[in-house]
């Protein structure tokens, strides 16, 4: 678990932004919105795991049960 997940998220963000721009320029606004939504969901699934490990670790370290 390191910096690579942050770089992955940044890459997904840039890719989704570029795809959205291209789709908007070609007049397919609805598909652009769906692309943005899909990017959001993909990134959300990526960060869900890391946030849950963070909370588990905090719970273990600070003895919160």
């Amino acid at each position, binding site marked *: *678990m*390191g*910096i690579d*997940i*942050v*770089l992955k*998220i*940044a890459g*997904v*963000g*840039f890719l*989704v*932004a570029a795809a*959205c721009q291209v789709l908007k320029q070609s007049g397919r606004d609805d598909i652009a919105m769906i692309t*943005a939504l899909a*990017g*959001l969901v993909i*990134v*959300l699934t*990526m*960060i869900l795991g*890391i*946030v849950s*490990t*963070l*909370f588990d*670790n*905090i*719970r*273990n*370290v*600070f*003895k*919160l049960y």
Partner: protein
Amino acid sequence: MDIYTVIGLIVAVGFAAFTLRELNKAIAVQLSIAGGAVIMLILLSQISGLFDEIGTFISQANTKSSFMEVMIKAVGVSYLAQIGSELCRDMGEGALAVKVEIAGKVILCSIALPLIIKIMNEFIEVINAVLQ
């Protein structure tokens, strides 16, 4: 893990989030959440070592370890409340952030209340013994 690594990581995450903010605001927020989580995960291993040291130090002083546990729990709850409220504030939800902070304070009070009651009982006993 030294301070330069943490600063470099944070600056890299901040730069990426800043660049992404104009292109895709939602993913920029998620990026900052992930960066914060990575940095906190790195720091937590050091924090647990620190608490172990403090625990052995306190156990040498013949005090109850439950007091130490209450303190550690309070620190953990305040950390979690701060993380949650900052996440809300990053997403532009100031009102929700304040609610998370209030919840943290209430839970902190309920954690610390038994200790406070214990101390107050000691005080009352001392005062009664003096007055009689």
